């Protein structure tokens, strides 16, 4: 069984392996970076570290202009290159998934989302989309 940290971006229910995630937090103050690519939402101050926040709404191209101010959550990723924040609409629970239930990405996904989602887990009553974190991190620039 694998543990996945889950969240919502628009209507999409997405998960990332727990081991990739440092923490999930709500954070209101974000400094925009003029001239940066649109999906760079800005910079946040995470206990003294400057962390780039990626707007997953734009990144996944969910068909609306960015995420709203107050409610957004930051999923903080930590890898050997440092920290990165994925800005999402709403955080979910950590769920256990069975590798057996993994299947290809749903046909309904279009465009950029189709490239970023590498598959889906069948949970009871819904699908958990498996986000390709490496791809997000590598191509977010």
């Amino acid at each position: 069984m694998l543990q996945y940290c889950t969240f919502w971006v628009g209507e999409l229910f997405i998960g990332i392996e727990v081991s990739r995630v440092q923490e999930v937090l709500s954070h209101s103050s974000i400094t925009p970076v003029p001239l940066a690519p649109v999906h760079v939402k800005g910079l946040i101050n995470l206990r003294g570290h400057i962390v780039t926040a990626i707007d997953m709404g734009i990144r996944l191209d969910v068909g609306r202009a960015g995420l709203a101010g107050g409610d957004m959550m930051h999923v903080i990723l930590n890898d050997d290159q440092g920290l990165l924040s994925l800005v999402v609409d709403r955080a979910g629970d950590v769920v256990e998934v069975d590798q057996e239930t993994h299947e290809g990405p749903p046909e309904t996904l279009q465009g950029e989302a189709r490239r970023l989602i590498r598959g889906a887990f069948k949970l009871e009553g819904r699908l958990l989309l498996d986000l390709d974190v490496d791809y997000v991190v590598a191509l977010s620039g």
Partner: protein
Amino acid sequence: MSGMDAIIKEFLAESSENLDQMDQDLVVLEKDPANQEVFSRIFRTIHTIKGTCGFLAFGKLEAVTHSGETLLSHLRDGSLELSPEVTTTLLGMIDAVRQLLSAIEVSGGEGDGDYSGLIADLERLEKKVSEKKKDDPKSGDSLGTVKSSRIELVPEIAEDSTETEPSIDPKVAPRKASSSKRRKKKESTSTEDVSTQEPVGIGADSGDADPVPNLEIEAPTTTALGESSLRVDVHVLDHLMNLVGELVLARNQILRLSEGTNDQQFEAASVRLHGVTTDLQEAVMRTRMQPISLLWKKLPRFVRDMSQQFGKKVDIHMEGQDTELDKAVIEAIQGSLLHLVRNSLDHGIEKPDLRRERGKSPTGNLRLKAHHEGGNVLIEVSDDGGGIDHEAVLKRGLEAGLVSEAEAGSLDTKQIQALIFQPGFSTARRVTNVSGRGVGLDIVRNNIEAIGGSVEIHSDPGRSTSFRLKIPLTLAIIPVVLVASRGQRFAIPQLSVVELVRLDNESDGLGIEDLNGVPVYRLRGHLLPLLYLDEELGFTTSGEPGGGSVNIVVLQGDDRRFGLIVDAIEDSQEIVVKPLGRLIDGLPYAGSTILGEGAVALILDVLRLGLKAGVVSEVRTHQAAPDHETSVTTGVDRRTLLYVMGPADERMAVDFSAIDRLEFIPVSKVERVADLPVVQYRDEILQLVWVDQVLPERRTEIRKITDDPDLDALQVIVCTVDGQRIGLIVYRIMDIIDQNMDVTRPASREGIETCVVVEDRVTEIIDLKALIRLADPGFFERGLKPSSGGS
């Protein structure tokens, strides 16, 4: 195994420090062979390396140092003179040791370098002595022991220094009273000798007990500090620095909170916190500070080698060796400093013969000075050589296409000297293979500017050249000016800020002139190209800047000044520089920082901002060093023109590159000399040309500038044409425009170069030379050869 690794690491660190010192010592010794203090230090260094590497089983290193030590021992007992040949061989040995050490550092092994030639050299020199001295039992003896075992050498040191000590002792060998200071110094060194020998002996005697104490004994190259200092991993210091940075931010937050409260106790506590934090910050910064001598101590050796190679004689003088800089800064400037020194040796200081011819002492002087000034360190590298040969520089500038024939004549001293910093200038590469090495002075300048510093050059042709580097003390915490644009705050490093200008309702002179997308402000007669920060950052423009007043931050970027218009200038403060977040590349930001209340602010990269907007590379303000390269390439189809209006509303333009300044000159100041208008201008007599009289308006009734009833001051364009200054009196200066030159019409009269259409008006571009000839046919001849011109 890790214990062993640690020992090796320690060994490497110690040894490389000692080798640097040894380079310096050998050069000193060459000049002052009697200096026992220096000598024993050299001996100890090699001895310790040899002893330790024997223990660590580095055979090659041991063999090299062994031969070196043997030679040194002859030098010490006086049976061998320190000739240049011996010095060179010993320096060669140091290099070999360095190579071996770096091989050990990289691979853990000694590498496959072959040092038998060097060892043979060392032994050859040594044999000369031993053959000569075969009869001398003492020297023969010591040789034998040296060869057989390193251990037996140790008592020899002790013996030897007890021998030398009495000779230093004032009682036995009395010296003049004036040398008492010197004596004291020597005494203290000799006691140090004694105290350090014993442990060496123990370590070496027991052979393999523990070499670490053995190594620590070598620390006394920094004599008195040895006992009270300890080695700290740089990473620990970096971490500490980061934590203090955090603390500074937290302190700023607390201070902000305390402003909004009436709680006196809280306020008092936060003031205390403020004080302690500031002190702590300073103290931690100090731990990262290292004296510049760390960098400089490599130089005597370097200068010696280089000057031999160039066949020159050079003395090096250093002042302010104790000046401290942040470790990171020292690392960042190292290459540049070496380059400047090399440059002075190669191009600055002349060969002895030439120096004699010029009435100078055959030995040149290279001076390095360092001192603190404000938050910066000033480092000066100067020589008393030939200075900068303007003609040679101009010639090279023309060859390299950095400057056009036309421009060459109009450059002043400073501009000519600035040419040597241009990419592609380097004359060195062709003449020698030592300077250059693919690096020009442009790289030096770039490197210094990259850490927020600047380079200036001053040269007195025939006499001296000096480079002045202005370098920030530290890279981690910098003073900035905070500005706001569209409600967002940005930090601008104070080093780039020249001044802050606030314009209220354009009451200030002519205010901002904005046409064809090149807004300029006339700041004390100089034309300052302007950028709107909000536009540069891609904020969509909204009409009026706040409240009718305009804030201009005057910035210095790459030798050129420009103004940045911001919504508000908030305050200046010290900030901790943090790297930008991930995935933010290629944007005009130099980093980020966290402000008092925890918000992130971006630090603007002034140079990149200017480049992006084109003010730095394209619009040339002539008071700064010109960038000829760009003006040549952009000159093909676009030109920057000063657009003027004549008294009858006709339009003319002058090429911007020839213009030095714009002035207002009162009508009453205009005098006539030999029927030509002149004005006294900055301690010289400036000849003037009434443009409207030389090139009158042809279509309408003749009007003259002097017909204007409100006229009290004349607008004068001060230009340099063929190296001579002249002032053009025009009716009204309108604007600076960047004109597309693809649609032109031929000129229809003399004095005009060509015509272009600017804003639906035919505009004549003045041919300055022709205009001046029309006004005063003898102008150039008179000026070029003032003595033999005959007029």
